[in-house]
């Protein structure tokens, strides 16, 4: 049997790999996408809670997410699939001067980057988010252009489109070697076969480091685990994603939004972080998160929790993604380390990878890639992770 030849092999059919495969095919490449799970999005994509925002502080992420938001917002019109996109904006609340200061400082950077975001006092904020705890509310930011969509539906829509464009998929298949010749990728070996290709994209999410090691490289990506939950659906009472960045014993920030179907989806950042890839349910999650949510918005007390799960954040030392050609191996592109934002970054990163692979980079792209390059010096963390 002759070895199949592809222009590019994307490893990972999740939040990043799927749109990357699609974008690469859109630019005329013959693409193979390999994933270790049984079907698309079964790694971290389905664990994402669906928030989509461009209101970051790092310019690269702002640009990538603006491009992603455009994809999500226009997808149904362009391609027909309902992604459950809902443009309700993001609200970051402040109940202490510390958080108010952080948010207001960021506002300057965000506005300079051209983002639609404003600071609102308590009365105005309560009009945007009725039901917030009034006592102690200082104010918060609201960015109406942000929103949410269903990670699973998005992934499946991109999958459908990718197949339409001729992308080949192999599920339940693991990459066992990235074959190189004279410093150049020439193929991929898996537990089920081998494929020839001059280009591999690492989009393996929390498993990015293992894949890098298979290629004889390393990647500073360490997963940590976050738990999330979803409630019964109810009639809409909440439009924006609400984020509370105030720390509390056991947790840093937490956030929740009401999906297009009416379900409230929530997540918390444990403190200290739970490093590793253990995704088993903890007894600490629900009481900790519920207390904070009900304290912030008392009416949530009556909302019934339906399901919980844990997902992995592929963290980098500085909290920013790693995207670009690897300096030590020709034909190997990193699209990794999304730090829990793979879903919102995915379409932007995917299309950037496609432009990179086909040498169609814009000056903006070059700036982004400079910021996210794999061999950068990893400094301090981003303020609004």
């Amino acid at each position: 049997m002759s070895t199949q030849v592809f222009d590019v092999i994307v490893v990972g059919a999740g939040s990043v790999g799927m749109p990357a495969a699609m974008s690469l095919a859109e630019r005329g490449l013959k693409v193979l996408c390999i994933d270790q799970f049984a079907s698309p999005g079964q790694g971290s994509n389905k664990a994402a809670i669906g928030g989509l925002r461009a209101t970051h502080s790092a310019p690269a992420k702002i640009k990538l997410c603006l491009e992603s938001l455009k994809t999500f917002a226009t997808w149904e019109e362009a391609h027909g699939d309902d992604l459950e996109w809902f443009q309700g904006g993001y609200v970051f609340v402040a109940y202490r001067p510390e958080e108010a200061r952080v948010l207001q400082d960021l506002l300057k950077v965000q506005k300079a980057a051209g983002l639609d975001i404003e600071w609102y006092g308590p009365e105005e904020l309560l009009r945007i988010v009725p039901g917030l705890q009034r006592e102690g509310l200082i104010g918060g930011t609201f960015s109406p252009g942000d929103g949410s969509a269903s990670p699973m539906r998005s992934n499946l829509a991109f999958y459908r489109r990718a197949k339409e464009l001729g992308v080949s998929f192999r599920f339940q298949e693991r990459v066992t070697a990235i074959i190189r010749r004279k410093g150049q990728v020439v193929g991929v070996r898996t537990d089920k076969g081998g494929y020839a290709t001059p280009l591999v994209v690492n989009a393996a999410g929390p498993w990015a480091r293992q894949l890098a090691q298979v290629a004889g490289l390393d990647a500073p990506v360490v997963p940590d685990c976050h738990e999330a939950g979803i409630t019964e659906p109810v009639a809409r009472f909440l439009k924006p994603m609400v984020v509370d960045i105030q720390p509390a014993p056991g947790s840093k920030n937490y956030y929740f939004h009401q999906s297009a179907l009416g379900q409230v989806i929530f997540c918390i950042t444990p403190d200290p972080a739970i490093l590793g890839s253990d995704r088993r349910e903890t007894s600490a999650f629900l009481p900790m998160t519920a207390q904070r949510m009900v304290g912030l918005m008392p009416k949530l007390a009556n909302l019934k929790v339906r399901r919980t799960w844990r997902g992995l954040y592929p963290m980098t030392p500085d909290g920013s993604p790693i995207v670009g050609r690897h300096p030590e191996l020709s034909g190997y592109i990193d699209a990794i380390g999304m730090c829990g934002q793979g879903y919102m970054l995915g379409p932007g990163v995917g299309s950037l990878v496609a432009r990179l692979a086909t040498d169609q980079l814009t000056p903006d792209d070059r700036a982004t890639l400079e910021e996210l390059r794999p061999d950068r010096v990893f400094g301090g963390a981003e303020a609004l992770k």
Partner: protein
Amino acid sequence: MPDFRIQDHPILPPPGEATVPFTWKGQSFLAREGETIASALFAQGIRTFGHHPKDGSPQGIFCANGQCAQCSVIADGLSVKSCMVPVKPGMAVEPLEGLASLPDPTEAFRHHAIETLPTEVLILGGGPAGLSAAIELGKAGVNVILVDDKADLGGKLVLQTHKFFGSIDACHAGTRGMDIGKKLEEEVRRFEQVRVWTETTALSVFSDRTVGLVRKGHYVVVQPQMLLVATGARERSLVFKGNTLPGVYGAGAFQTLVNRDQVRASERLFVIGGGNVGLIAAYHALQAGIQVVGLCEAAEDCGGYKVHKDKLVRMGVPIHTRHTVVSANGKDEVESVTIAQLDDRWKVIPGTERTFACDTVLVAVGLEPVDEFLAKAREFGLPVAAAGDAEEIAEASAAMFTGKIRGLELAKALGRDVGEVPLEWHRTAEVLKSRPGATVTEEIPEDERGVFPIFHCSQEIPCNPCTSICPKGAITIEGTDILGLPMFNEEACIACEQCVAVCPGLAITLVDYRKAPEGTAEVSIPYEFAPSSIQEGSTVTVLDTLGRVLGEVPVVKVRAPKFADHALLVKVQAPSAIAKQIAGIQVQEPWVSKPAGEVVGRVPDEEIVCRCERVTAGEVRAWIRQGVRDLNELKSLTRAGMGACGGKTCPSLLKRLFREEGVPLDQVTDFTKRPLVMEVPLGAFAGVVHGEGPTVDAAVVRAHAAFEGGL
């Protein structure tokens, strides 16, 4: 105003008066004290509780067990499961139309911290298995928390108005299930270190080997050294057109409405499935004054005990073997059911469809273990055992015995000096789990003089109360276990009629030639229907074991001895030619079972697989044909399994569709199982306390203190 409450049940004590006022859509009604909203509505003939947000389909009772959320209504502004929440005085109940609104809090509340309580053994489920285990653990002095989601202990025993099979020594055979439940509860309550938490639902086993429970609205975490899963079974569902119309529900749900809550949930009923559950439910329906139009079973013969089947047949209920349900028909609620004959390859034979008018279709197509807690405990390394149906589907008699065994095993594992589990217990458990054995031709004795019992009992099942009850010891069973058929082996009968009364299958008659006029005999027949339905001096139609009419005979005596435990012993005078064939009295007229001339009501065109998210079999089949092989992908594509029931109902139906499409299940990736097992308000996890009361549930504190003291 129509009232569908049962007033004259032959077995159950008369229920209390309805005194609790509530409103439904603004109209005033009365509920009984402690009655669930669902039963209070059924008592008014209301069984459509709202409409689904996705397609506006009418919603009503499905599980009546708190497992799904199909019966949700709005009670005082909050969406609740009507099958679990009792009516409170003045409660305003509204249908749930589409999505519920989340109300603003009506009162201030505070939080308290969620406690973690240690215990030696946590038993999930207060049914026959859990209670029996608790008794053994109690005897051994083990600290136990036993939880059950219902207000009353006993599990499904509460619903079992019939006398139990098995042996008297091992599992109270010959006693009614509901009374066995009470006996077990009394015994459990004797042990101080066994703490019983009713209205407590287990939600999840966590990776730190704790178990999250919600107790009367308060969230509690229990940290057991060992877990016993005695959570019983849930009913399997079935895919057919109209399968989610209000009026289609499980046999267990039906028994809850009829036997626990004493609501005549139906006037004309059709049963799908000839296992014990379906057969018994049909019998319970007859006792509640509900017409049973028929029962269909896909196999050659019913899978349940032959005595249960015979009981129905001789009461006049036709059993359609090799038949399946084609559709439940009706616009908004069930108005009729269509069944059809199956060929050798289990396909419907066109042209054999028949439609029967009915208002309710019971689905009794088997049970599956509630084993998600068991799986999670094993995954997380929490020492765990299972007993009863959660371990293996069998009769409640077997559940009591496996519970007993597990109880002793756990006590031993915890270091208590309880000795080995007697080998005999294991043997008895195996015998009680036995599937029905060989069926033999009924042997009718040739004698036509004196007095003797006749056993219309021709299938080997684990049962022997008749041998234990006979004061003369004249009834024996062949072999060493209790599976054999009874024999009467000496002429010592004193006509005490105790064997007639005790037989759980109502399969023993007593034929007495001594005082009857020449050419006749007196035949004693057990009868478990309303006393008002039979009088001395009246004439009754008697039937043989196969339900064939033998003739009309006069009733010469009706008595209700205490030992018959609410059953009547009816003595008829019959010609000798038929006396020994008589096996029962017809209670339902043949016209009840006649097919309708044409389909009554609209035939729906959709078969629903996932009732929470309204996913049709057609959608699922289309995805399978497109190559989907991962149930998780199917879930993302269709939302099947994402609904309020927590993916408890549709997985087996989805897998069946894969098989029907020719996809072997080893090619299909199973669902990833996620907590929670039940939807619970966020406030419970936040430790929300309403009003000005104590910040911590006083009972929990007391229990905690008792436990600390007990160590």
